[in-house]
């Protein structure tokens, strides 16, 4: 459906996107996830045709589109600030692409009705844009982007400005509409939760480069590098030295402890400094001086912070024997676990396969 081959964009000496390649299949929902300045919006704008790549090719339906202006591409786009036309009604906005793309006059009202119904705005077609709520405006924006049934839908962080509750509702709503129409979609966001909730596949970008392309579960469970591990989820990084590394396993020294973990590194990493990564929810807490069920590693620690968030408790602990590291820990079952106090001495532990080792670049 869509293919990017070695797409690069430079602004003067600044490289906004470098050697970005991926393909998107019919009906697939892809999210480009990255912090601001990662190049994700640049990639989206090049696909939409608002800017030209410095190098590389973009293919839509197998055809290179470099020469095609935006209005000749079959792409619907929902903008960050929605960019609805305030001087038109909701129906007028949805009819606009149909008029511009030369749909038969008689068909337009029927289509507008159909798409108003699809986004659950039945009967609100005559409303002006400023007479609609934020969520309703989102719905008009997506209906407008889809009413001409484009081959590809682009979402440029349209949900970023919504409050959390509405945003989570709209994430599911966008996903429902996308699946109902089966339109290939590229979503751009800095919200890792949104990426995991909505997507079939996630592309993580940083510094203009693709860091990882994977299904949401895989990006979460097997992050390709330290950046991905840190950007998706809350992760503790512990400085360590690699002692051994082979067959997807590594033996490292963290402070006074030797422990094993998963790693893609090979023998060349031995002796080098690395980051050992532990997800906040994968660190377990137990009584001081006692073992913890299922934990392979046990380390003494002191609680320095306790934040009760209802469905979870967030702890910060100091572990002097881990090179003086401070760790963040989530307890997702606070009703069944003892709540620790600040200053309390505890044992923390983790399973061997939960530790991930990322060697630092030489």
């Amino acid at each position, binding site marked *: 459906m869509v293919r990017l081959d070695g797409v690069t964009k430079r602004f003067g000496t600044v490289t906004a996107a470098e050697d970005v390649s991926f393909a998107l299949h019919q009906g697939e929902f892809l999210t480009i996830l990255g912090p601001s300045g990662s190049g994700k919006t640049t990639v989206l704008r090049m696909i*939409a*045709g*608002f800017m030209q790549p410095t190098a590389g090719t973009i293919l839509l339906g197998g055809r290179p589109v470099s020469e095609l*202006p*935006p*209005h000749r*591409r079959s*792409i*619907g*786009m929902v*903008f*960050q*600030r929605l*960019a*609805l*036309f*305030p*001087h038109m009604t909701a129906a007028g906005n949805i009819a*606009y*692409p149909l008029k*511009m*793309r030369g749909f038969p006059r008689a068909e337009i009202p029927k289509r507008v009705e159909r798409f108003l119904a699809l986004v659950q705005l039945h009967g609100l077609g005559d409303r*002006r844009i*400023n*007479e609609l*709520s934020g969520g309703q405006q989102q719905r008009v924006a997506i209906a*407008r*982007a889809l009413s*001409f049934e484009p081959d590809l839908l682009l979402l440029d962080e349209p949900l970023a400005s919504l409050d959390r509750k509405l945003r989570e509702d709209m994430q599911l709503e966008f996903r429902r509409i996308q699946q109902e129409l089966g339109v290939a979609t590229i979503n751009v966001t800095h919200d890792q939760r949104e990426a995991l909730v909505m997507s079939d596949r996630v592309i993580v970008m940083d510094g203009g480069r693709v860091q990882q392309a994977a299904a949401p579960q895989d990006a979460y469970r097997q992050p390709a590098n330290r950046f991905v591990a840190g950007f998706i989820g809350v992760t503790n990084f512990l400085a360590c030295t690699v002692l051994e590394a082979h067959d997807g396993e590594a033996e490292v020294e963290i402070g006074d402890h030797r422990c094993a973990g998963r790693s893609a590194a090979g023998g060349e990493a031995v002796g080098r400094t690395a980051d050992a990564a532990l997800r906040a929810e994968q660190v377990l807490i137990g009584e001081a001086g006692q073992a913890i069920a299922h934990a392979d590693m046990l380390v003494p620690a002191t609680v320095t912070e306790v934040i009760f968030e209802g469905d979870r408790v967030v702890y910060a602990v100091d572990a002097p024997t881990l090179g003086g590291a401070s760790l963040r820990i989530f307890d997702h079952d606070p009703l069944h676990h003892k709540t620790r106090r600040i200053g309390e001495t505890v044992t923390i532990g983790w399973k061997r396969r939960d530790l991930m080792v990322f060697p630092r670049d030489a």
Partner: protein
Amino acid sequence: MTPGIDTAASNRPLWLRILFAAEATRAALWPERFSPATAWAFLVPAILVVFVLVAGMGYMVDASLRELDRSTFMLSDDYSFANYATVLDRSFYWHIIGRTVAAAVIVTVITLVLAFPYAYAMARTPSAATRKLLLIGLFLPFFIGQVVRAYGWLIVLGQEGLLNSGLAWLGLDAIKLIYTYTGVLIGLVQYMLPFAVLMLAPAVTAVPEEVELASGSLGANWFATLWHVLLPMAKPGLVAAGVVVFTLTITDFAMPEIMGGGTNDFIASAIYDGYFSISEPGLGSALAVLLVLLASTLVAVIFAFVGVGTLGYTKRLER
């Protein structure tokens, strides 16, 4: 230190003590309970100015209703519509009124057409240097003044002026623009352009660039985007600029005087002649009243047509 009591008062610097004294005086003269009136009090100077103008208009209406007594060269004591009848009776005046209104319409249209791209470029250029250059180009004419600019046009467009020298050099015939209607219109458009750009720029800036991109991605080419999105969204600025240019042109005096050289008088010139050349203040007043009526009626029609909302006086419908 007693809580709640300001014991530092005696340590205040002199300037603060003066400020506090001034504040105390104000509080004595204008107690807090008068405060709802404060905002209105600021309107007083503006109201006074308008009132003086209205009073002047009143005298003018009065004069326009008195006929000149040819034996005494004084205005008659009794009222009549004789002056208005004279104006409406003479085709000479009809010509002038027609010429003025036509010029106002033509100049407004041409000025808006020229000003819009200028304002658009100023609003959209990514380069700060370009924007500054455009701004300087916009404000420079304001420093020069209309009369000097009109004489500048004489130098450029005159019989032996730059334009005709250039045409002669190219082997082409000279064009007569000085003392022609076209010359007056050129001068007026150039005079009005900065006003129009100044009023359009905020309106264009208020249209987010994203909206234009959206229109493109929805299938509109640049002209369709301009017609269906940009112009409707910039309408408040277009109407405001149009009204300003229209009223400034319909009442203009200097440009037709200098560029027309008496061959292409506007209503304002006729009023001037009424007072000072033919010494008929009644006739001049009648013309002045007619001009005010004409201009205000046309502006009222425009606002009735597009809504005063374009000036920003709408109740917002946000929820």
